[in-house]
């Protein structure tokens, strides 16, 4: 009994080591995605090209310009453009925003009158436009306090940013990336490993041997679970060492959760392998079923609450939705099981459901 299982697992490890496709999926792909999301995709904005039309040209107005110039967020590329060029400069993307300081700026400040500055923003990227607007407002607000600090008593809000104080994208993306990579890799490896045997006719050879379907499933799933799990550890380690993502919570708990989640991915893969006989189709189907919903609908990038109702419902059945809350909770907030038991239960439930369904389908498939 055990000897049979060991034989299958040993063979599976040999496949893993010798198959370039498996190695690419298991090692190259995660590393590539890690660097892509860690470095290239960045939600922080810096060095935004802006223009300033200082029509006032007074010491007072220059003070605003200096304040903007000293801010890392802005990169002042255009100063005092000709009125006729405003639109052209936007169209050629020389600037994404233009601040116009009116001619009578200094005079009105002296007289203590209300001054209106004009801000033009390119909102072809609305998200960026929002950022720009907020930053400008903040800078101008500081300037106003500077001018008025003796005269008016203003209240101020002192933010204290929790769990990711520097608001780094990497801290948000890399724990999330574990959710994307683990499900993709584990599902892909399993489905391909099973379908390859069908394609090569070796599955039939296994079926005529006295090997029990459970032995085939366990013998196949265990090595790939291990591989998927090592993958998770690898991303975690690289995230921590290369991208300085702090791991606040318990490593033990992270590892435990990763195992459940990998098992979930395996079950997906097994299920897919029962409906197709071709590695190509298995590859496509796995990518479609795991990658798309996990990246788009699980809260990996976009908040679930801002999606249309239909997508919100879909997100409830995506394992990554729960795993993301778990992994971000543990890594960034130091959550323990008491804060995460709900998500853990649902994730385990989905896993058990998928696993039993795929085993059932796998067995009937074999007996056909």
């Amino acid at each position: 009994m055990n000897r049979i299982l060991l034989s299958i697992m040993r063979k599976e490890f040999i496949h893993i080591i010798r198959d370039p496709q498996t190695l690419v999926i298991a090692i190259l792909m995660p590393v590539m995605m890690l660097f892509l999301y860690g470095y290239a995709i960045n939600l922080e904005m810096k060095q935004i090209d802006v223009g300033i039309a200082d029509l006032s040209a007074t010491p007072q107005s220059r003070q605003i310009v200096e304040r903007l110039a000293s801010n890392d967020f802005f990169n002042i590329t255009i100063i005092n453009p000709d009125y006729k060029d405003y639109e052209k400069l936007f169209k050629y993307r020389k600037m994404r925003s233009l601040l116009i300081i009116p001619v009578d700026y200094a005079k009105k400040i002296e007289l203590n009158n209300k001054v209106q500055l004009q801000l033009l923003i390119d909102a072809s990227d609305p998200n960026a436009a929002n950022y720009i607007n907020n930053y400008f407002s903040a800078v101008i607000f500081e300037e106003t306090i500077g001018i008025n600090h003796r005269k008016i008593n203003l209240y101020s809000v002192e933010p204290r940013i929790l769990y990711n104080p520097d608001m780094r994208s990497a801290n948000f993306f890399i724990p999330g990336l574990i959710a994307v990579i683990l499900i993709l890799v584990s599902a892909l490896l399993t489905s391909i490993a099973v379908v390859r045997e069908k394609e090569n006719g070796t599955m039939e050879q296994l079926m005529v041997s006295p090997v029990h379907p459970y032995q085939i499933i366990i013998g196949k799933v265990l090595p790939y679970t291990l591989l998927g799990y090592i993958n998770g550890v690898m991303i975690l380690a690289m995230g921590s060492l290369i991208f300085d993502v702090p791991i606040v919570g318990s490593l033990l708990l992270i590892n435990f959760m990763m195992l459940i989640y990998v098992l979930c991915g395996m079950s997906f893969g097994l299920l897919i392998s029962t409906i197709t006989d071709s590695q190509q189709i298995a590859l496509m189907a796995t990518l479609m079923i795991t990658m798309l919903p996990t990246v788009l609908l699980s809260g990996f990038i976009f908040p679930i609450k801002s999606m249309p109702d239909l997508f919100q419902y879909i997100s409830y059945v995506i394992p990554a939705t729960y795993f993301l809350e778990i992994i971000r909770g543990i890594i960034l907030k130091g959550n323990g099981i008491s804060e995460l038991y709900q998500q853990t239960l649902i994730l385990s439930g989905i896993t058990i459901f998928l696993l039993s369904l795929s085993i059932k389908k796998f067995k009937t498939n074999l007996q056909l």
Partner: protein
Amino acid sequence: MSENSYTVEVHNLTKKFGSFIAVDNISFSVQKGEIFGFLGANGAGKTTAIRMLCGLLLPTSGEATVAGFDVYKKSEKIKSNIGYMSQKFSLYEDLTVRENIQFYGGIYGLTRKEIAQKTDDLLHYLNLWEQADQLTSALPLGWKQRMALSVALLHDPQIIFLDEPTSGVDPISRRNFWKLIYQLSGEGKTVFVTTHYMDEAEYCDRVSIMQEGKIVELDTPKGLKSHYKAKNMQQVFLNVVNGESK
């Protein structure tokens, strides 16, 4: 278990897929040490019949015992007592010759010692010493085929099912393959073989010809040839399939 229980006995075996009758009420029995040929055009039901006998497929009705075990209830026992080799080459190409032998030995529950012994025997027998640690994909097809058969025999089964074992193999390899089959039959193993090649049908002790799920002829090649007044099995087969008068 008594000697003559190691045979195949089939009574009124039928397999339906929906309304399609793949195997229609076939009956025959195969004796120990016999080379039993299964002929028929593609889709005649040969493979379905073999799959039922190997415990891969449950029959719709009828009875069959293989090596003395009932196909409905004892498919696990059957699997331990048969060897199977299909038209698809079924060794792992990314494993070495030795690793393949070790794997198949392992899943048939052989001990490590037995596997080591069998590996030595097989490499010697197949004359594959030098290739033992090469990937199986590097072997010529004829060698792979002989190796696949040998691997299917690792656990010393009494009955061997061969589903078009020689398709795509050159004539010399085919002849070598048949030498192996004769040797097995000489050792008292029952060989159940389907084939497309009519010259191979001549090598069988008895031949059955299937058509549309039914066994339409069952006799020795010699008997069939005289019955159809044909000079070779090719002619017999064409006569049967075209439904020409005897």
